[in-house]
């Protein structure tokens, strides 16, 4: 039986490990609240990868060249792979992939709100790569040093691949900008639609972010939402200039004194509407996942039944 004294000792050791910025490993003692917070964050990240396959995946069938079709299909396949590593990382904390899927489908666990926006043209494949994957990397690179070991290690591999996707997206847009007037207009229209949702990906302003303080103390999160958002804007502006597109923000401008770009605020009312389920695609995204899950049920059942039969036969031999 665990005594209070033991718990206090274990908690102290846990705090020291986090303070040293060492990793917490699956068999280490951890506070229950830490365990459930990491499960929530990793599961939501895994769900984001899997739901994020939908907006771009819908364009695989319509990719305008065979080379682009191969690039896009390989990218969406990578997202499935990221979903797999992340579900596995979460499973080390004692939750099954099936349980996490149920939590996603019943709305108990969320996924990144950005995927509740529609992908409406082939330029969106490029913009999602450049701005959405770009914003995701800004959020995720610090997570390579997150305190939970399996999550941090999964993130190192994921970030490398995301960085590749981001470059591919940017390369698609660069190529389209060298094409026809219609293609250039398509790129600008797409950037106009995705700029604000991309800024929202860093979460609400720090003053309104309920989870930030505890997550930073535990080393799960290492930068605040507003810090990361500023970093993203600072990096994106020169890229937009190189590409030849503008961002739809009249307040955007270099601030010599701060050494950063000033920028306007996203529509936070829209952000909360999307988070609460009223985004353009929330219902569609979950319905798609539910349908895929239901349609695959007989296959998963057959696979389990076959495995059980094989095991029985092996025992009898």
């Amino acid at each position: 039986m665990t005594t209070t004294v033991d718990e206090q000792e274990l908690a102290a050791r846990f705090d020291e490990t986090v303070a040293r910025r060492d990793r917490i490993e699956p068999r280490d003692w951890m506070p229950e609240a830490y365990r459930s917070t990491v499960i929530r964050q990793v599961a939501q990240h895994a769900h984001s990868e899997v739901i994020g396959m939908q907006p771009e995946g819908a364009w695989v069938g319509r990719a305008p060249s065979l080379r682009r079709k191969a690039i896009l299909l390989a990218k969406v396949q990578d997202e499935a792979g990221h979903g797999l590593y992340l579900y596995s990382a979460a499973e080390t904390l004692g939750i099954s992939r099936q349980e996490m899927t149920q939590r996603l489908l019943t709305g108990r666990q969320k996924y990144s709100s950005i995927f509740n926006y529609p992908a409406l043209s082939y330029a969106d494949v490029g913009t999602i790569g450049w701005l959405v994957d770009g914003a995701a990397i800004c959020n995720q690179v610090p997570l390579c040093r997150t305190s939970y070991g399996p999550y941090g290690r999964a993130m190192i591999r994921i970030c490398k691949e995301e960085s590749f996707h981001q470059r591919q997206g940017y390369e698609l847009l660069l190529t389209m900008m060298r094409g026809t007037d219609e293609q250039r207009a398509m790129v600008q229209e797409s950037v106009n639609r995705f700029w604000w949702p991309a800024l929202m990906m860093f979460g609400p302003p720090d003053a309104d972010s309920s989870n930030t303080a505890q997550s930073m103390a535990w080393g799960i999160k290492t930068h605040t939402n507003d810090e990361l958002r500023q970093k993203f804007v600072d990096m994106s502006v020169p890229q937009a200039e190189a590409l030849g597109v503008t961002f739809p923000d009249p307040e955007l401008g270099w601030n010599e004194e701060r050494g950063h770009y000033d920028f306007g605020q996203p529509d936070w009312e829209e952000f909360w509407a999307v988070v609460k389920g009223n985004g353009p695609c929330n219902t569609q995204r979950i319905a798609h996942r539910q349908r895929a899950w239901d349609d695959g049920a007989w296959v998963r059942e057959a696979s389990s039944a076959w495995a059980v039969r094989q095991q029985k036969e092996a025992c009898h031999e």
Partner: protein
Amino acid sequence: MTHDEADNPYAGLLVDDAHWAFGAGQEFRPDEDPVATAVVAPVPEGVDRTAAAAYCLMLGDDALVLAQRLSEWCGRAPDLEEDIALSNIALDLLGQARLLLARAAAIDPTLPPPLPDGSPVPPEDRLAFFREESGFRNVRMVELPVGDFAETITRILLFSTWRLALFERLAASRDSVLAALAAKGARELAYHREFAARWFVTLAGGTQESRRRLLAALGGLWPLWHELVETHPIEVEAAAQGIGVDPGSLVVDVEPVLEQVFATAQVEWPSIGALAGVRGRKGRDGCHTEALSRMLAEMQVVARAHPRGLW
């Protein structure tokens, strides 16, 4: 690496770096595309160009159309593992299709449909996106709408068993491009066949429901099997010239493999006749099922809206 560098995912984005995006550098130049440069080897002496190009086109269309169908599973497979595997198979077939279509166009430059002057659309894409349905030379099995998972597994099993046997012989083609792509493709197809055979046996012995679905899938696809193994005039010509393979000669390789898979799955060899053509014309003659034009409508829509587009 310092923390600041690690935190900057964009480091190098604006620097010229030829190592990403499939070696194409930041700006894609069609004339430097590896596919375009790989397929321009000279045609062996005495080979009829029209016949050789038609043969490449036929094999390329089989791969392209099945890749398009399999990619419909992306994001909706029974589980993530199968999602990844089906995308993998689609990607392999897409790679084969690109080389075969590009080779067809390199052998017979009159094959790709003409586009407005100055259009940067490369030959492989002219063939894939600007040909009419009747110009496609694939067998009808690959174009059928995607059914359930049992149907997809059975289709991959039949198609990859046939194509693997074909590619193993095609690796000895007098055409160096066909020989090289067949040698590489055979390794891919061996994996596709393995994946499909494993699932075929699993579904046959899984639950009553999975067995019912599997047998229905096999019954539905078998009438189209015959079209793969019967010899078309294009294949007679290609085999006579030493660049292609007569599929009639593959039966001795293919049937024992299928017999073994069916026996393990305790499934009987189907006794269902061949699906007729229209006055004898079938997929290889450009006479398809109703499904192909709908599939092409989706596949070609963006490319056709931008005949001068650069992608």
